[in-house]
């Protein structure tokens, strides 16, 4: 059992060590993120509760959300406006930037449900 846990831990660590933002250019993303900060916060931790926190969110989920706003698959007039100003490259970069921000408030539910 101990050994099983150890190998599980190693696998998990290895998965975490793989940079989640291998693809994007964080610096270029930072430059593109200036208009976003008004709502999503300078640190990506939107203080106004109506806006989602982006800091530390998975980069590929952020990309997916931005593409969906752009195509209209996800319907929100505000974000549709911003997403259409972004090229595919911008989407990858800006997602990499927000995912890389330190001081995230977001967490997976691991250990946080009844019975854990």
């Amino acid at each position, binding site marked *: 059992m101990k050994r099983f846990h150890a190998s599980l831990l190693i696998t998990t660590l290895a998965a975490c060590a793989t940079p989640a933002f291998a693809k994007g250019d964080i610096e270029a993303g930072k430059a593109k993120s200036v208009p976003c900060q008004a709502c999503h916060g300078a640190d990506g931790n939107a203080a106004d509760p109506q806006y989602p926190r982006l800091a530390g969110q998975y980069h590929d989920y952020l990309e997916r959300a931005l593409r969906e706003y752009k195509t209209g698959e996800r319907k929100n007039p505000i974000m549709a406006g911003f997403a259409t100003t972004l090229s595919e490259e911008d989407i990858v970069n800006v997602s990499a930037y927000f995912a890389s921000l330190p001081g995230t408030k977001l967490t*997976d*539910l691991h250990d946080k*449900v*009844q019975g854990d």
Partner: protein
Amino acid sequence: MRAVAGDGGWPLYSTGLTPEKFNQRRTGTKMTRAPLFAAALLITSLPCFAADKGDAAAGKTKVYTCAGCHGIPGWKNPYPNYHVPRIGGQNYDYLVTALNEYKKGERSHPTMRAQGESLSEQDIRDIATYLSSLTP
């Protein structure tokens, strides 16, 4: 005043008791009717003061089914392949909006739409209250 059985939910979540436990306790302590009635009035009137927010303790039990996908760090949605988003510590108002968007079909993800449809307004408030209270 909120109808006790209005949304089909268990109105005494705030006591942390299941219906079974509440009844056990009720019969066990031989409470007279009057204080019980007063307590019931107090409990059912509480949501009127906290108009928006739900009950974090109730939310904690209701997110049990969510953890299968949102619980595991690095867990991925299969097709298309991307990470299931982190929802703990997200802002309360946004969580309520997001769950309602799935419910109304404004967001397309099929499994999350099914999740949204299965939740009452009270469930959504309870879950959002609990999730927004979490820290990494």
